[in-house]
C-alpha cells in the first residue's frame, strides 16, 4: 500500500467523517482516496476553492462534532497558516497532513523534503504550540494518522502529520487492525463556562447544535468565549494556557524509539532518515551506534536527550538545511553534528557512514 493511502485508511479507521481539500502534489492521493471512500460511509468530501477554504471548512465541520482533516503540501500549507492560528485560538480539534516537498515556493513538487518543520511549529502568528507527528514508514502513516485524531480531540489543538513525498509515495506492506483505539472528544459539562479549563488546561467541547449557545471567536476571549481583546491579563492567561496545555504534556505524549542508550555516537532522526540509520546499525553492529527516533517532534521531548549517558556526539540527518537540530542544540551540551540534505532524496547509508568516518 502507498503511504498516502495508508494515511487515508488511518483517518477512516479513526472515524474521520469530513475532508476538505485542494489538490496539490505530492499529497493528492489522500484527497482522492477520501473522495472515493467518504461518501460510501456517510461522510463528506469537499474540494474547496483554495487551501484557505480547506482549512476553514474543516474547522467549521469540527465544531459540529466531526473528526475533520485536510491534506496538503508546502505552498498550500503556507496558505493555511492564518486559519491554523484560528484553530489554535479557538481550540478546534483538526488534523493537517503535510506531505512535504522541496521549497521554497513551488520548488520540487515531486520530491521529498522536511523543510516545513519550523513552519508547522512557528508559522502562524502569535505565541502558539501544536503537536506534530512524523512517520518513517507506510505502517506509521496509518498508525500516526489515527493517533493524530486522538491527540487533536484530547488536547483540542490542530495536530500535524508532517510526512513527506518519500514516505507518502512509498509502497510497503502494512497491517490494518480490525479496530483502532479511539479517544473521544470530551464534551463540555452543562452549566460550565465554555472556555474555562480544568487542571489539564483543556476545556470541555461545546459542540454546535447541543444547546450550548457558544460564541467562538479568534479574538482574545474570556472564559465565556466573549471578546476581551484589550485586557492584558485575559490575553496573557489565555495564551499561556493554550501553550502550556500542550507543552506541559510533552514527556507524557512523547513517542519514540530509543536504541542502545550506552552508545557514544547517537543518531537522532525523524522521518526518512530513520530508515537509513536503521540500515547502517543493522549492517555495522561493530560501530555500537545509538539511535533516538522521534515520532512526535513537537512538543519537543528534550529529556530524552539525557537517556544517553555516554554520548559524545549526536548526529542529526534531516531533509532540510538543519531545522530540528536547532531545537536539539539548545537542550544539550553534547556536540550535535547536523547532516543536512536537500534536493529531494533521502540520506543514503554511505552518506551517514562517511560522517562516522570523519568522526573517527
Amino acid at each position, binding site marked *: 500500500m502507498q503511504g498516502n493511502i495508508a494515511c487515508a485508511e488511518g483517518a477512516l479507521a479513526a472515524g474521520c*467523517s*469530513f475532508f*476538505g481539500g485542494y489538490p496539490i502534489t505530492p499529497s493528492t492521493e489522500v484527497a482522492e482516496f477520501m473522495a472515493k471512500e467518504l461518501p460510501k460511509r456517510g461522510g*463528506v468530501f*469537499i474540494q*474547496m*476553492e*483554495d487551501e*484557505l*477554504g*480547506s*482549512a*476553514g*471548512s*474543516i*474547522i*467549521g*465541520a*469540527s*465544531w*459540529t462534532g*466531526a473528526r*475533520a482533516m485536510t491534506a496538503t503540501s508546502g505552498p498550500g500549507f503556507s496558505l493555511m497558516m*492564518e*486559519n491554523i492560528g*484560528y484553530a489554535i485560538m479557538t481550540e478546534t480539534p483538526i488534523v493537517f497532513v503535510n506531505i512535504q516537498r522541496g521549497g521554497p515556493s513551488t520548488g520540487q513538487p515531486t520530491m521529498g523534503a522536511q523543510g516545513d518543520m519550523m513552519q508547522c511549529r512557528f508559522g502562524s502568528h502569535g505565541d502558539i504550540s501544536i503537536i506534530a507527528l512524523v512517520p518513517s514508514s507506510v505502517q506509521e502513516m496509518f498508525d500516526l494518522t489515527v493517533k493524530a485524531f486522538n491527540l487533536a480531540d484530547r488536547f483540542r489543538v490542530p495536530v500535524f502529520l508532517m510526512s513527506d513525498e518519500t514516505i507518502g509515495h512509498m509502497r510497503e506492506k502494512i497491517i490494518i487492525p480490525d479496530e483502532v483505539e479511539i479517544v473521544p472528544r470530551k464534551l463540555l459539562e452543562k452549566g460550565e463556562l465554555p472556555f474555562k479549563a480544568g487542571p489539564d488546561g483543556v476545556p470541555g467541547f*461545546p459542540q*454546535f*447544535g*447541543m*444547546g*450550548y*449557545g*457558544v*460564541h*467562538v*471567536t*479568534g*479574538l482574545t476571549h474570556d472564559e*465565556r468565549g*466573549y*471578546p476581551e481583546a484589550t485586557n492584558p491579563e485575559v490575553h496573557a492567561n489565555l495564551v499561556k494556557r493554550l501553550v502550556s496545555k500542550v507543552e506541559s504534556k510533552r514527556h507524557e505524549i512523547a513517542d519514540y524509539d530509543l536504541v542502545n542508550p550506552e552508545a557514544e555516537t547517537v543518531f537522532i532522526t525523524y522521518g526518512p532518515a530513520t530508515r537509513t540509520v536503521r540500515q547502517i546499525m543493522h549492517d555495522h553492529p561493530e560501530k555500537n551506534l545509538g539511535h533516538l527516533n522521534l515520532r512526535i517532534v513537537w512538543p519537543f521531548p528534550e529529556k530524552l536527550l539525557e537517556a544517553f549517558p555516554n554520548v559524545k556526539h549526536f548526529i542529526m540527518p534531516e531533509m532540510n538545511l538543519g531545522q530540528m537540530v536547532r531545537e536539539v542544540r539548545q537542550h544539550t551540551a553534547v556536540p550535535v553534528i547536523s547532516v543536512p540534505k536537500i534536493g529531494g532524496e533521502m540520506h543514503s547509508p554511505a552518506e551517514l557512514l562517511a560522517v562516522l568516518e570523519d568522526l573517527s
Partner: protein
Amino acid sequence: MNDDYEKWYREDRLPHIYCPGCGNGTVINATIHAVNAMGWELDNTIFISGIGCSSRAPGYISTDSLHTTHGRALSFATGVKMARPDFNVVVFTGDGDLSAIGGNHFIHACRRNIDITVICMNNMIYGMTGGQGSPCTPVGAISTTTPYGAAEPVFDLAELAMAAGANYVSRWTTYHVKELTKAIQAGLETPGFSFIESMTQCPTSFGRRNNLRTASLMVEQMRTCSMLIQKKNRLEAEGKPVPPHRWTVGEFVRRNRPVLGVKP
C-alpha cells in the same frame, strides 16, 4: 407569528461596539425578525461571520456562532453546513470582508449554491480599521486610502452573486427596513445560496468624509438614491437614460438551480 425576539439576543454582551448612527443594528434587527418569523430554533441555527464591523454581529446573538478569520466566513460555513445539513446557517459579512479578501470564497459558494443565507452590510468602507477604501467605495468618494477620491470602479455585489449562480439575490437599504426583512426571510426560505445585500450607513467612517455627517443624512440618501429594479428595467427597455449614482434595489433573482448542503 412568534414575537419572542429577545431570546435571540445575548443581553449580557450589551452595550455593543457600534458607533452612534451605525446601520448595522438595523440589519441585525431585520435578520432576527426574519429568522424568528421562520420559526427556527436557537439550537439548530448557526450564525457565522468574518472580520469587520458587520462580523461582530454573531457575538450579540445567543445561538452557537463562529466569528472567523477575515474573508473566510463562507468556507467555515461550508464546513458546518456540509457536515450538518439539518442546521440553518446564516452568515453576516461586509463589503470588504466579502468582496475583497473573501471574493474567491464568495463566488464559489454561489457556484456551489450551498444552502446558506448571506447578509452583507455594505457600508462602502472599511469601518473597523478607520475608514479605508473598499471595492465598494464609489468612484470619487473620500476615504483614508483614497484621499483624492476613489478611482477604481466598484463591485456590484448583487450582480456578482447572480452571475456566480446564487438561487436568491436581493438588495435593499437600511431605509427599507420592511422590504429588507421580507427579503431576508425570502432568502432563508429559498433552498440554495441566498444573498441579501443591505446598503448600510457608516456616518463615522464614510459619511464624515463625504458630506453626509449624520445618520439621518445618509439614510435620506439611501431613500433618494435607490431605484427599484423594475423601474430601471423599464427605463432601459424604453431606451431612456438611467440617472447616475443610483442603487438598484429589489429582488434580483429567485430560482431553483441544484443546491448543495440540503438534507436528502
